[in-house]
């Protein structure tokens, strides 16, 4: 059976950061990623990131991914890091300490790590409306994959559902790809994403329908239009429904952490609405109640990629430290730096939700 010192599940911003941190400290690291390409959501982001210099602020997401890939290549060459794409971790067997995985669609394997970092990311939420399963109703991540990774036109005219950061950013990206936006529908009386992202898309002439929701996707086999509806503060319909011309409906109604492996590992889990679903309880070093398992990124609670990268660093650092590969000085220096960065990222009003969510799941240390 394959073995590794540290197994990182998920090769997105959090997972790659964890792997790089661990490899930089001399650990033998293996990364599994279910996608065909490494980089998770980062490779789909054409906008410049927020945050500070340490989180590559002002740099486009896909370029940040390229920086990480360069470093990954370096450690691969040194023989410290192995990366497997198109490889889905299918289970964690607690009593055997074994992770099973599937390569492609049919080949199975398993690996026995000493320490594990679960950076499994998130998955798209769905909202109920008539015909929400119809082809042409796509998740925002899927649309980004089609147009920004593979350069394929996802549709001619898109109705965006949700004005959080993802809805706003993907609308902007669609326009960059030359695709029309029929409008952005948001049930709340206020956009949920950064105000500046909304301003960018508004000055392109895109309407944002606040306090509106989608009622129905129209069409026979594929989307040929949509019906939207104004709602009041209690989400009750106001006035007549309105038909919108579009051939694609993009759902950007939030994400929820991918946590199946954490459950099967028996990690203590908690439902935290502010973090968008079930998340593992963890100490400040991102260690879960299972002493060999760490969590990082969206799997630990939905947040920006910049925070995910720092969490990955912390998890990687702590996992290697548990193998006694790190001097105390390095550990404390790096740990202090990373925690300061996280604190800065979460300090403002937009970090309030995250802060209150984290206060529900973070413990000072495991007893």
């Amino acid at each position, binding site marked *: 059976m394959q073995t590794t010192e540290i197994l990182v599940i998920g090769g997105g911003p959090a997972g790659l950061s964890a792997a790089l941190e661990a490899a930089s400290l001399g650990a033998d690291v293996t990364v599994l990623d279910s996608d065909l390409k490494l980089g998770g959501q980062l490779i789909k982001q054409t906008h410049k990131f927020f945050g500070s210099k340490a989180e590559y602020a002002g740099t486009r997401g896909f370029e940040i991914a390229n920086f990480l890939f360069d470093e990954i290549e370096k450690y691969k060459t040194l023989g410290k890091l192995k990366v497997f794409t198109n490889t889905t971790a299918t289970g964690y067997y607690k*009593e055997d300490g074994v992770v*099973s995985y599937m390569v492609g669609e049919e080949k199975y394997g398993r690996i026995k790590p000493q320490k594990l970092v679960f950076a499994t990311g998130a998955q798209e939420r769905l909202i109920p409306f008539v015909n929400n399963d119809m082809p042409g109703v796509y998740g925002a991540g899927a649309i980004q994959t089609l147009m920004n990774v593979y350069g394929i036109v996802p549709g001619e005219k898109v109705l965006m559902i949700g004005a959080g950061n993802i809805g706003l950013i993907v609308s902007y990206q669609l326009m960059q790809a030359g695709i029309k936006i029929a409008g952005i529908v948001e049930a709340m009386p206020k956009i949920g994403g950064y105000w500046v992202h909304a301003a960018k898309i508004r000055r392109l002439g895109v309407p944002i329908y606040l306090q509106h929701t989608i009622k129905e996707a129209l069409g026979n086999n594929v989307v040929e239009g949509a019906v939207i509806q104004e709602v009041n503060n209690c989400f009750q319909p106001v006035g007549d429904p309105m038909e919108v011309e579009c051939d694609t409906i993009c759902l950007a109604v939030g994400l929820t952490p991918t946590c199946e492996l954490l459950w099967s590992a028996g990690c203590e889990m908690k439902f935290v609405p502010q973090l968008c679903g079930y998340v593992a309880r963890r100490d400040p070093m991102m260690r879960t109640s299972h002493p060999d398992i760490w969590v990082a990124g969206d799997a630990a609670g939905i947040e920006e990629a910049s925070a995910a990268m720092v969490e990955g660093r912390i998890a990687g650092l702590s996992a290697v430290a548990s193998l006694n590969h790190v001097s105390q000085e390095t550990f404390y220096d790096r740990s202090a730096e990373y925690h300061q960065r996280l604190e800065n990222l979460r300090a403002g009003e937009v970090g309030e939700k995250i802060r209150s969510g984290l206060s529900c799941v973070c413990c000072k240390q495991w007893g």
Partner: protein
Amino acid sequence: MVSKRVDVAVIGGGVHGCSTAYHLAKKGFKTALFERDYISSGSSGRSAAGLRYQFGTEVNIRLAQYNMKCLKSLGEDLHYPGDLEYDPAGYLWIAYSESQLAQLEKNVKLQNELGTTGSKVLTVKGIQEVAPFLNTEGMLGASFNQEDGHINPHTLCFAYADAAKALGVEINKKITVTGLISKGGQVAGIHTNKGDWEADAVVCCAGAWTQNIGRWVDLDIPVIPERHQILITEPVERMKHPMTLCLDDGSYWKQCPNGTFMLGVGKEEVKDTSFYASWDYLEAATERILPKMPILEHIRVVRQWTGPYGNTPDFQAIVGATPVEGFYIDCGWSGHGLQFAPSVGRIMAEIVNGEKPFIDVSMFRYSRFEEGDLFFEPACI
């Protein structure tokens, strides 16, 4: 805290607890049911969900006849709006040795004598007819009954729980029973983490968790938890394939109504109520089943779960009163209990009501272990 009062408290929101509560309410008892988690969260919802006539002891066969009759139309009878997914795809017990075949023949003979005419012994050619995808190499024969089958264990529990609720039963979910109230040597209610309930009788339907409850009244109930696991594959179109059980290695597999295959295997397992699955089991089950049904080679396993059996020394249930007055038990079903909910729920209500059970279950008495009067069920894995 002011304690509440009911006639009967039922411990356990599995299928036996729900059915017992339903039948008690039908007799007019003010009943409350207590479940630590959600309805069907224990072994019921984790079971292989099999229904069958094919047992090897008289009491089980007689109970099974009643069970099978009830289960066929249970959804309608209980006015349950959901789908119980009752599916008579058949049960095929395979023998790989003369002694196994002899036991199957004996079982079938007894079933036939007691009026279950659908059970029969098959030759290898007969096996190929009812289960064309099997590799019959090494098989000597089998017993088969086309009316045996499958039911959805969750909706089965919900149907009983909803029917009980409609008759006024208090269904308490997410409440943990923490002790039994004893008064003058008899059980007079329960303690829970949400207060006390006084009751004239307590019926324990806690399955593999029964032993802990017995200890509160100094009973050593010989129900030993044992982990069992199940694998589920991706769904594929229905194929002609009955539930198949192999007496040589305890492997069993069937296709559920939604198209998924369910796979399991008899194996030395840990003796506790843990819910964790093991890689060994995945390997053992697939290694043993694939040669017997090669077409499953490329099907993908998508889930694996665990639910404990509550085993007794003779793999037979313990049903009825106990030496502690007011304390009744229905446990120890050793892995085949789900399907007995219709008959045994009714019998528990009859026993609590002081009636003679409609089927004699004295063989299942608690005192048989002390008396050394064990009787083994040959048809179980």
